[in-house]
Each structure stands twice: as C-alpha cells, then as structure tokens.
C-alpha cells in the first residue's frame, strides 16, 4: 500500500493482552530478582572462579562492603528474607517466561514479529549506523521491529534469560545432583555463581538500552502500547506535512 493512501495519523493494536501482562509481570520479577540477588551477594561479596572458593586462586571480583542498602531487597542486611524474595520470584519469573515462550510460538509472535527476514539480514550494517546516530524508523516502518531489535530480543529470550536461570540452578546443591558434575561444564559452582552475577548485570544493560530506546522513540506512545496495546503511527508525507 503506498504511504499516501494511509491516514496521516492512526493507531493500531500492537501488543496482545497476553504479551502486555507477561511483560509487566516480568518487569516486577526482574526488579525483585536483581535487588534480592544483590542482598544474597552481600552475604559473601566475593566472586570466585572454579569448583570451590578456596582453591588457591585469587577472587575474580571483590566488593569490600557489598552493594549499598538502597540497591538491595530488603534494604537492611537480611540474607534469609532476601532468599525468600529471590526464590519466590524466581518461580514467577520462570513460569511467566515459559508461558511467554509457549504463547509466542502458538500465536506465531516469534515467526511473524521477531524472526529476521531476508531483507533484515541485509540491512544489519545500515541499521547499526542508524542506531549509532539515534535515528529511528518513523511512519509505516515503525510498525515493524528493526533487525537489531529482533536479534537483541531473540538473544535475550533464548540466550541470556535461559542462561541466567541455568546458572541459578547451578547454585542449588540439590539440582547439581540431577546430573552429577554438570556444573563443571562452566568451571564449577563458584564459576556458575560468577556467571549468574555477570548475566544479571548483562540483563540490566539490556534493560537500560531498552528503556533508552523507549524514551527516544516516543515514551508516551511506547508506554501506551504496552499498557493499552494501541500504538500511534504518524505518516509524514513527501513534502514534510503530516
């Protein structure tokens, strides 16, 4: 359809109710998991590499006083309660993520909206340059995710999130016994603890970029579309009028 025949400004239904609910549950779960995770980290604010903490190898990372109380849940040092928050919301997070993945396969959300097309693959170079210039698609083109966006979402959904969950499981002495020695695939339990920590901060980095992009591509429009589902497209005509 040629652009001219589109109305200058219209809204369309961008995010399904299921995706919106799952998204906001995920927001709450990730915030609780991060902050309670930092509470748990503070009980032993050292990261090691290997099967044990006492293997003669110097710590990988050390924070003498841990993270400040405004970053932890609960605020004061309270490992027992931090664990309760963390291990409860871990279930919410995993179940929520499972429902999202099943729903997105069933509704073809992955294949329709997130799988890069052949032309997407060819546009990776230009897309990188546009992102670096903070130039983003407008008008009809904004209806589709760009290729970097698709690849990032797929990497987070099928890479980073399963990895952070797996590294969390590696910290459970009981789950380590399901296949004895499986934690050694990443270097041992202390390595898994370090990787769990790094993956959590990689998720924070993703969220920071995500929120930054949400803000510069129209915070009100984006937020509305993730709350009500409706996203507004404004078409500029060739002469610059709207």
């Amino acid at each position: 359809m040629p652009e001219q025949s589109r109305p200058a400004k219209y809204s369309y239904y961008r995010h399904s109710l299921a995706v919106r609910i799952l998204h906001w549950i995920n927001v709450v779960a990730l915030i609780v998991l991060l902050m309670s995770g930092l509470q748990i980290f503070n009980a032993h604010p050292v990261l090691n590499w290997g099967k044990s903490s006492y293997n003669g190898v110097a710590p990988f990372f050390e924070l003498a006083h841990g993270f400040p109380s405004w970053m932890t849940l609960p605020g004061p040092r309270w490992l027992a309660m931090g664990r309760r928050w963390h291990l409860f919301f871990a279930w919410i997070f995993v179940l929520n993520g499972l429902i999202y993945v099943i729903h997105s396969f069933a509704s073809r959300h992955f294949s329709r909206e997130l799988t890069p097309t052949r032309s997407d693959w060819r546009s990776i170079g230009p897309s990188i340059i546009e992102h670096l210039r903070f130039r983003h698609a407008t008008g009809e083109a904004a209806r589709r995710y760009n290729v970097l966006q698709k690849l990032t979402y797929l990497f987070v959904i099928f890479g980073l999130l399963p990895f952070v969950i797996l590294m969390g499981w590696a910290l459970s002495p009981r789950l380590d016994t399901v296949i004895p020695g499986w934690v050694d695939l990443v270097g041992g339990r202390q390595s898994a603890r370090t990787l769990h920590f790094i993956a959590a901060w990689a998720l924070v980095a993703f969220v920071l970029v995500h929120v930054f992009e949400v803000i510069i591509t129209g915070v009100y429009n984006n937020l509305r579309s993730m709350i009500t589902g409706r996203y507004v497209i404004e078409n500029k005509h060739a002469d610059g009028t709207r």
Partner: protein
Amino acid sequence: MPMARADLSRRHFMGRVLAATAAALLAGCDAASRSSWLPRILGIGERASRGAQRLASRRSMAQEFSAAEISPQFRSNGTANPANPEYQRLAANHFADWRLRVDGLVHQPVQLSLQELRAMAKRSQITRHDCVEGWSAIGQWTGVPLSAVLRLAVPRPEARYVVFHCADPMDDDGSKYYESIDFEDAYHPQTILAYELNGAALPIANGAPLRVRVERQLGYKMAKYVMRIELVESFAKIGAGNGGYWEDQGYEWYAGI
C-alpha cells in the same frame, strides 16, 4: 526558551515522582518483609522448590571430587569452639567420655562412643560444602552412615524427622544449635555422621567429635558438635518450632537451593 524550561521542569518533576514512588515501594517491601503474612506467601516458593527438586532427583548422588581438588584449609563458619563447659570438659579428654545418644521415637535407645562409631561401617566421600552465604569448600569426610546408626535404634513407624541436638550455645538464653532432616535425606547413602576431615580426626573448628553431612543441602543443615539424635513425628515443639536454629531465624527448612 520557555518551552524548553517547562519541559525541563516537567522532567525534573517526573524524576522526583519516580524516585519517591520507588522509595515508597521499597519501604513497603521492607515493612512487608517484617510482617507475618508476606513470609508465608513467599514460603510457597520454598515448598514449590522442594517438591520440584525432589521430583527431579529422588535418589540422586552429590558430586564427588578428586583428592587434588580438596580445599587447602576447610573454612570454619559459625561456632569455632563451643563456649559450653560440658563440651570443653569432653574436649579436654579427647571426647573419650563423649557419647552419642539416639532416642525419641525409637524402639531401642542407644548410646555410642566414638570408638563404637569408628568400629561401624564407614564411608568416605570428597564433597563440596555450599554455605548459604555463597562460598564453597571441598573436603574429604569419613564417618558412619546415619542409616546404620538409625537401624541400631530401630525407629518407630510414626517417626518422621531426625533432629540433631548440638553442643554449641547460640544465644544468651543458652539455647543450642539444632537441625533436622526427614527420612529421605536421613537414609541417603551420602548422609553420614563424620568423625574425620581430610583423613585426620575432625577438628573442633569443624565440629568435633561428630558432625552431620547432608550433601544435597546447604551447610547450615550439617550440624556440628552433635550430642544427641532425637527421632520425632513433628519438630513443632523444638526450639521456635521451625526445625532448626537458622530456620527459627527465618531460613528455609528445605535447603536444597
């Protein structure tokens, strides 16, 4: 430009609203953490983890390591030397007068000396000790399988939990460390009462003369300075009723995670 200034002050205002909301939410979470209802809700997570983990690994064995992987020094955590005159008297005599009492819901209460325990079937295992704080240490433990000791005492059918009463005083009121496990863990082949660490007599810092190894759970389940094993149907009347000293401070009874 007035527009820009208005925009800026609006952003400033929005920033403050966000910060105030976040602070209020965090204060709310802290208050809820101290309530009686929230820990109960969060406890659903513990029960779900226990159910799922037991389903996934009913008879699984903890990983065992090679001698080369043993930590140079096994970290001592919590009590390093119980401030208990009775314990000190026993330690001064190298625990020759120490007896492990096994009683409660058993047909045959028994008392066992260290020599008698050493004469029983033994098991040696090099395992990783995971503390709830986050650190791990690898050590070689030698001791008698708990199942062998329980068989001597012949548990009554109504017994459901094994409670370990310890020598180390924890609070000013004189209450001592205790822990409990259920029969699934009690009869696990790697659940042993260890009297040796890394081939030498168990040091006092690590729980002499006897400590529990429950290799598929966290360190606080593995009570040190064990004096008495009591079989019970419920641990509701022991301590504050949660099944262990740290459980009474809010830690989970099931420590497989």
